[in-house]
């Protein structure tokens, strides 16, 4: 139906990024917003505008998949899902932002932290 990044995101997430009306409630709800370089609503906008540089932003790794945006999105496009899909697209290119071997103090962390981190941040 579309071309380029919007089409890929549409296929992988099952939601149409063009339905986003940029209301900003996802960004307004995001607990990690202060650590993001591009607010979630702008990430979706960049998908709409087929801007591949969105794959380089810090936001998609900071997102904790807490789904607060998804339960509030008035167009029900599940922004968390879309951001995760962008993450998957990057991971499938074998690009990971974190090398877990370099992280200090791994032994003190709960297992769940390690596992979820390795799943989300690496391939």
């Amino acid at each position: 139906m579309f071309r380029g990044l919007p089409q890929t995101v549409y296929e992988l997430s099952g939601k149409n990024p063009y339905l986003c009306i940029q209301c900003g409630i996802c960004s307004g709800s995001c607990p990690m917003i202060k650590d993001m370089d591009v607010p979630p609503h702008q990430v979706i906008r960049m998908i709409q505008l087929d801007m591949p540089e969105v794959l380089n932003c810090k936001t998609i790794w900071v997102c904790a998949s807490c789904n607060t945006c998804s339960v509030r999105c008035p167009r029900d496009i599940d922004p968390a899902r879309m951001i995760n899909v962008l993450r998957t697209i990057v991971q499938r290119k074998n690009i990971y932002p974190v090398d877990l071997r370099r992280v200090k103090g791994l032994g003190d962390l709960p297992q769940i932290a390690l596992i979820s981190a390795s799943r989300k941040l690496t391939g």
Partner: protein
Amino acid sequence: MANDVRIGVYVCHCGGNISNVVKISEVLKAISGVDGVVLVRDNEHVCSEAGQREIREDIKRYNLNRVIIAACSPKFHGPTFMKLLEDSGLNPYLFEMVNIREQDSWVHSNDPDGATRRAIDQIMAAIGKVKLNEPLEAREVKVGNRVMVIGAGIAGIQAALDLADSGCKVYLVEREPTIGGRMAQLSYTFPTDDCSLCILSPKMAAVYNHPNITLLTYSEVEDVSGSVGDFHVKVKVKPRYVDMSKCVACGICASKCPASAPDEFNYGLRSRRAIYVPHEMAVPYKYLIDPKSCLYLTKGICRVCERVCPQKAINFDDKERILDIVVDAIIVATGYEPFDATKLKQYGYGVYKNVIIAPQLERMVMPVGPTGGKVIRLSDGQIARKIAFIHCVGSRDEQIGRPGCSRVCCMYTIKQAMTLKRQDVTRDITLFYIDIRAYGKGFEEYYMRAQDLGVKFVRGKVSEVIEDPVSGRLIVRAEDTLTGRFIEDEFDLVVLSVGLVPSRGTEDLAKKLKLNIGPDGFLLEAHPKYRPVDTLREGVFICGCAQGPKDIADSVAQASAAAGRTLRLISQGRILIEPIKAYVIDESCNGCGICVDKCPLGAISMVDGKAHISEALCVGCGSCIPYCPRGAIELKHYSEKQILSQIEGALKSKRDGEIRVIAFFDDSCTYRAADLAGTSRLTYDSRVRVITVPSASRLTPKIILSAFKYGADGVFIGDCLEGASPYHPKVLDVINDVIREARSQMRKYRIDARRLKFDTIAVDMAERLVKDLGDLISIVEKLGPLSVEDRGRIKV
């Protein structure tokens, strides 16, 4: 029947428009001598005065009892000729008009032989049908000028006044103890900033004093039966426990009443006594007792009001009364209510005292309101200095199933912001919005004035409101999408711009009146563009917010429109009920009841174990027909036999090896598109034979397969776009069911399913229709004509 049918066939040259392509002499030759045809004539202009006179004389001289006219589109002169028959003493339904201009000569100009054969076949089809046509009478129903208006908000009031001023007898039924609806609860109205009650009160007084209006307040519609011209409505008048004829509204009772309840008129911002008058400008201005909070009516004690009332107006023996009212037409104006913001817990309404909804702010702003006109924090009574407004609460939100926009909130929020600014220009006011919808006359200018006054606008939907437990201030979180900055700001007061939802009880009332409801819960109009205040039920109209959110100006416009439509309906003193309706063949009906739910208008019910179709409610679409397992439902003038005879007639001349496509067009959309193809001089293959039906939902798998059996190699079905059918919005569902079943049967008989094609066509989609027909012909050519064995396999 063949013996006593005497058909006269008239073929028009149309001044060369037809005769330049279609060989008239061949047509005349082919038709003469057909069984039942007594007379065949041609004429340059059948519609001319001379042409019409000739027909009139022929009918008398030759004792004709059926007439066929092969000429232009029946959409053009159909009514003319029907009237001609009537004037000549013949029933106008003993007539068929064959379109050999727009749908023959004008579209097959490159194929005169084909055009001629098509003309002959279409006339043969008409001959087959007209033999089976029966005289039908439009039933005349006397209508008077009694109208019931349900709901006495501004829309109901306006409709009632328009009707009453025109001489109608109006029953205005209002559920609340006072009329005026939501408009009475508003402060000022945009974009003029009129005081709402000031412009409403004169109309309320006019209603109260109008000799033609019977005002029934504190009353509800219990039951509705009957049909246009004869609606029987049961109205329940609730007991006030105060004799209205004695009460002078002195108020002594209320001053002594010990019981209280939240004041609904002020959205709970203050309380009222159990005996009360709804508000200072109530009409009728009489007291009443609330049975839920009155100590006597709930616990059997007190009765102080009775003792102190100087007029002895209190009557605890008051009972509800049921009135039986007969009216000719009904207008529904039941309005809206504000969205219940407690459903959106993240905004804290109902939990945090200083989060209020916009309707409450309307009341606060009024000098006679619950806070004396002061906009205060409800927690500590301090004047609010820094206020946030949150747009789209309960609208444009898929999460709560309300995706629609409520239309007026942007404007009322701007209005409220300006009101607060004018009270104190140092106030800090911010509106958090998604879009600003200022679409109407003077609206954009109003928005500019607000900006000019210093009202701040932040484009970002608020994610949540938190009340700090220590400071008591409200924290609002939103993203300013235009700068990408996250905002976390403290406010004294947060106002939620709640959307409009249908009034409580709309669904129940719709069931009682057998009206359709849209996906948003509002009453559904007959057609959104050209019948915005009609419903699919004849004699019932809707207006105001009952039909959808809108402002006062639009409500008033719709109210007058509904009154106008009502007057149009009843102005002749009689209305004609079209005779083309579905009916049940009792002997074939086995009482299974499947059809009852299939009629979207609720026209079918079970009576004495058999299905019965109400003539008043039936619109003649035939959607019920395909679902009857016994084939026990028929459609007048378009019976199965009539359609099959048309198919037969159209295919009779087919020779071996030739290809034919039978095309079923719905009468409203596809047929008109086909006419448009003609006026646009598009061309398509002449091997198409058209049969018209009111709605394609009347077709059955049997009819479709019969077409193949009788000689068709392809079948096309065309009907209106989704939701556009003038009959009802769900015809497509029926047609899809029929086509699915037909295709399944075709597969069973090893007939390629691609030979059946269906498309939705709007009146202006002539090119699309021509392409569809062309595509089908190509498929049929590629697959080849069906063989005798193929047709032999089909069992109908």
